[in-house]
């Protein structure tokens, strides 16, 4: 897993000239790194993360994931690495509230086309791994913030990704839960998974192996 960006730019439509969120960002992330992206609000951290995670397209520049220039690929081809190689953890969890936690975890497996029994087994295993054994049937609204984020992490791990993208994963959590989640991310990194985390929190950032500081759409 390697990530290579050079001169990435992103301009949001709207207004006369649009609004530039990224103004030429270049960096490289190697396999197994734990990178924290920090910076004030509106500096383009989340935009960068979305582009890395193939959720958004850059307006200019080059981005290669594992040596592939992914933005030349079709939507279908791009959905595959998003599903199989990348796991997302969001600030507001983004769980589907109508589904139980086990169904939420099973979703990526379902899109990958795994069969029913295997899907169920794997989802159960993942929930146990994040410490939610016995809460498989609960829907997100019945869980605490920390628990929801753990479901989200279990979901992110469903297809054994090599890269976890976390966008302010502790932003909506109390300090105790934050600690747990952070612990979990560090643990995953220790298993060899590359982690890129966007955060405001200097303390959390300090635990990452490398910090990318952003300001006004550029790396400092």
């Amino acid at each position: 897993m390697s990530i290579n960006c050079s001169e990435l730019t992103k301009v949001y439509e709207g207004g006369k000239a649009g609004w530039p969120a990224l103004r030429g960002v270049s960096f490289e992330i190697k396999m197994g790194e734990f990178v924290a992206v920090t910076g004030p609000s509106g500096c383009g951290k989340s935009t960068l993360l979305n582009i890395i995670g193939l959720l958004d397209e850059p307006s200019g520049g080059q981005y290669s994931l594992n040596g592939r220039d992914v933005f030349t690929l079709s939507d279908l081809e791009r959905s595959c690495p998003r599903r199989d190689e990348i796991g997302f953890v969001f600030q507001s969890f983004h769980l589907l509230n109508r589904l139980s936690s086990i169904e939420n975890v099973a979703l990526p497996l379902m899109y990958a086309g795994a069969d029913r029994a295997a899907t169920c087994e794997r989802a159960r295993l993942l929930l146990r791994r994040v410490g939610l054994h016995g809460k498989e049937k609960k829907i997100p609204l019945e869980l605490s913030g920390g628990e929801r984020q753990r479901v989200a992490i279990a979901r992110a791990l469903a297809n054994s990704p090599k890269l976890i993208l976390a966008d302010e994963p502790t932003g909506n959590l109390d300090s105790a839960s934050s600690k747990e989640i952070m612990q979990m991310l560090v643990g995953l990194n220790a298993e060899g998974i590359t982690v890129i985390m966007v955060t405001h929190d200097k303390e959390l950032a300090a635990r990452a192996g490398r910090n990318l500081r952003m300001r006004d759409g550029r790396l400092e």
Partner: protein
Amino acid sequence: MRAILNAVKTGFTEIWAHKMRSVLSFLAIAAGSVVFIESFAAIFATYERLEKQKEVSGMARMKISQNYSQTYSSPDEYVPPPVIGYEDVVRLREKMPGFYMVSPEGRDWRNVLEYGEHRLTTSLMGVTPEWVKRDFVYTLRGRFLDWHDVENKLRVCVLVKKAAPPPENTFNKSMMKKYNFTGGFDMLVAHNDMLGKAVNIDGFTFTVIGVLEELPYSKRPNTITGSSQDYKVLAPVTTLFHYNFLGAYQSLDISIDTGSEQNFEESLRKINNFLKIRFGDGDFFIVENQLEMIRERIAASMKSALVTISLGMLAFLAGGIGIMNVTLATVFARTREIGVRRAIGASRRDIMLQFIVEAVMLGLIGGVLGSALGYLWGVPIKVMLGMGGSPIKIWMPLVSVFIAAFTAFVFAIYPAWVAAGLKPADALRAE
């Protein structure tokens, strides 16, 4: 396949989670389904009746009657048109001995029949013995008119006894009361044994030599007009001319059965020739044949079928737009969910499939609901209107459900495409 199954599962969850919205969509499509089934059934019923009619009456039938639609540019130009008299019928019979039936019919209306203290309105019809060769839907007591009666202009008659009317409904009953001027005659024949009795018609005494009893409605072949003609009193056509029931200015209708369908065209040509030689050029008479009448009727019923079908289509269109609206609303209400699904690996195709499957499920369930409704409500309403249940065949609801699902599919394509086109990052940001 698995993807579709998953989409179906999600669809069920969604439909169940938004019961009100789903029910409204069901109803929208169900309305279309109901109209469609009804129109299907109506068309099919007409078609079947015509087919049966074709079988019963055969193709070799035709009818000569006076052409009433001739026009004259001024009253001064009017010359009374030639009429078919009994002589003409006899000549036609002589020229075409091979025909199975040449039956003249002369009608007189509003005759007064007196029997004992009864005094009733009825109608007379002048015929020859050939009349019995038409589709004979009677049982006879006594005897029918014979050639001796005709040649000697005897004052004999045959009365027609009506069968019990078909299952009545209020509407029909009130109409019968209003327009059935000869109800008294029917009562008289029904409740008195008239055979051998003398009756007085418009001052002339006739002897009743036979009574024809109509078959019950269920056993009678439908005629082309849907019900049999209203015969009351049959008498020799010559007698009616002789006693001035029929005037010299009145033209007889002639029903002809050529006996075989093969040389039908030939016979038609012969008849037209005969009329031309006898009465000269000019469209004084029209020769209708049943085949053409049936064809015309089929064409007419197809026309009305198209109208009904297009009504059904319109209803489906309305339902489809309803589904499109609902699906669009769903897409916007679930934008964030679309973002989430995309983030965890759903492709555009997956998203599109999900919304289309959901809409098709709405259509399917609505179609089934509508078919059931169409079947159930069709029964009491039609009985009330006295239409008789239309035959709903098993394939009609199937076709209707299929069309409902297909409509939903077509109308879901655009919303699903909108959903699939959302950028994951934008969708995730949606509130």
